[in-house]
């Protein structure tokens, strides 16, 4: 087990990581409509099997119900959300304002992202904002939390108390700056990292080696991203169509060589094998399981990966002090 660290916020994710447990996170994409019940249904599927759930922010630039409202709904349904925020659609006023909105509902986790380009989505002719970038968003949230100050320098009454995360893609180019880039995100304020989904294990291991060489794994918590293939078609699509995802040919072949009706099972098997290998890598503090439109499989993956039951922070003796008694 890793050495314990002291949590700085009341985030459940931070507490679990600080205690030295392997954390399990997943994600929930809000619907393309206003039916909040969809979120409650997805949330109910995940509840108890994961520690926190990421709520995506108009992912791939498709317009959806907003991540802030979806986070609030999931919180009200008893899950702990990680509010994802991209810098594509909001300027610094809107970002700070939404962070305060989230903090007013005691949303304790945020993931700072740049966001996919709008040309991938349903508003290709729209403007993008990019007033600040994801590194600057990290710095901004840190300043709001740690100094209690807006970007403009004024004091915030009741500053947000958020555990602050960022994404890292060990597979994007140029490879030689992938570790320096992580160092830069940590310097900007990233306390936890969720990686892009991992299929190319050699490349990931090389990256983690570089991360450990600089001691970065002790300055942040790294959660390894995994996504099970549902079909061989999906593996092919991810290999050739999704920028920044690296799927080795042998995995595509393994999926294609499997009869259609067994492909889903094979996808889960590959995912479980990946998790087993990742557990062996020093510096991996948990898993971010992104089962795209396949949330119902998350409980099975968590159980079969030996990650169930999840740590019970409410249990006596396990809870760090300072939790409300009312």
């Amino acid at each position, binding site marked *: 087990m890793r050495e314990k660290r002291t949590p700085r916020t009341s985030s459940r994710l931070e507490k679990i990581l600080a205690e030295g447990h392997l954390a399990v996170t997943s994600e929930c994409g809000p619907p393309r409509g206003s039916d909040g019940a969809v979120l409650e249904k997805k949330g109910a599927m995940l509840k108890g099997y994961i520690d926190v759930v990421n709520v995506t922010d108009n992912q791939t630039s498709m317009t959806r119900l907003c991540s802030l409202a979806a986070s609030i709904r999931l919180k009200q349904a008893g899950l702990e959300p990680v509010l994802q925020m991209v810098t594509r659609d909001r300027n610094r006023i809107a970002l700070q304002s939404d962070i305060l909105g989230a903090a007013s509902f005691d949303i304790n986790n945020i993931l700072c992202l740049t966001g996919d380009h709008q040309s991938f989505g349903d508003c290709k002719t729209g403007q993008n904002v990019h007033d600040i970038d994801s590194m600057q968003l990290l710095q901004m949230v840190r300043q709001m939390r740690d100094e209690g100050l807006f970007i403009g320098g004024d004091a915030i009454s009741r500053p947000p108390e958020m555990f602050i995360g960022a994404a890292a893609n060990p597979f994007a180019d140029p490879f030689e700056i992938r570790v320096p880039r992580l160092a830069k995100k940590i310097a*900007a304020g990233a306390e936890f990292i969720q990686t892009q989904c991992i299929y190319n294990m050699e490349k990931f291991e090389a990256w983690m080696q570089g991360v450990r060489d600089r001691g970065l794994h002790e300055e942040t918590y790294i959660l390894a991203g995994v996504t099970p293939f549902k079909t061989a078609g999906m593996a092919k699509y991810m290999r050739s169509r999704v920028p920044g995802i690296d799927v080795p040919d042998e995995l595509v072949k393994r999926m294609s060589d499997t009869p259609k009706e067994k492909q889903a099972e094979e996808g889960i098997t590959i995912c479980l094998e990946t998790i087993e290998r990742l557990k062996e890598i020093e510096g991996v503090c948990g898993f971010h399981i992104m089962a795209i439109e396949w949330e119902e499989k998350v409980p099975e993956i968590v159980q079969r990966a030996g990650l169930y039951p999840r740590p019970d922070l409410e249990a006596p003796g396990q809870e760090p002090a300072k939790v409300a008694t009312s």
Partner: protein
Amino acid sequence: MIVGQQKPLEEIWEMVKDRKRLLVLGCNTCVAICHEGGNKEAGIIASLLRMKAQKEGVSIKITEGGIERQCEEEFFAPAQTDIDEADAVLSTACGIGVQFIAAFWKDKPVFPALNTTFLGGVEQIGVFSERCQACGSCVLGRTGGICPISRCAKRVLNGPCGGSVDGRCEINKEIPCAWQLIVDRLKELGQMDRYEELSPLQDWSKDRAGGPRTLKREDL
């Protein structure tokens, strides 16, 4: 220089078809370099419009003319007679030229023949590409002389984003990733240690966001 691209002839036609005497006025500086709006191209557009008018059976007198620069009044004199004789001007200048012509000849409608596309340079013969968005607070000194504001699709100041693959931008394999170029260049300069310097928030008040910009030189 400013790069522009001719609008489709149909779109131009819709703007000008109800005029009686139209002058197509070229601008022989920036937009002549990309062969879209120089005096020669103004002549070609005028011919195409005459053919179009004939085909549609519409009677318009279409003439052509041109000056060196439409963004500065000092260059307007040679166009005076041509413009006096016309009841409207189709300008093949960039948006700046169109506006200066319109401001000078207050009684004449002026139409744009081009879409003004970007500030760029000649990459190779026939290829023009964007290099600057006139952000008003240049960061080139920090980025190895490569502009992340005009050349990165998300204008990230601490790039690259996660979509950079094989040196190409996530939006299109034809477009080089600005941050790959920056990293390559910093490497060439032996300045890779600078990569980890965090770029502070950009001051966009000097950019479009701050409202129309003016430069006043008391010495001129």
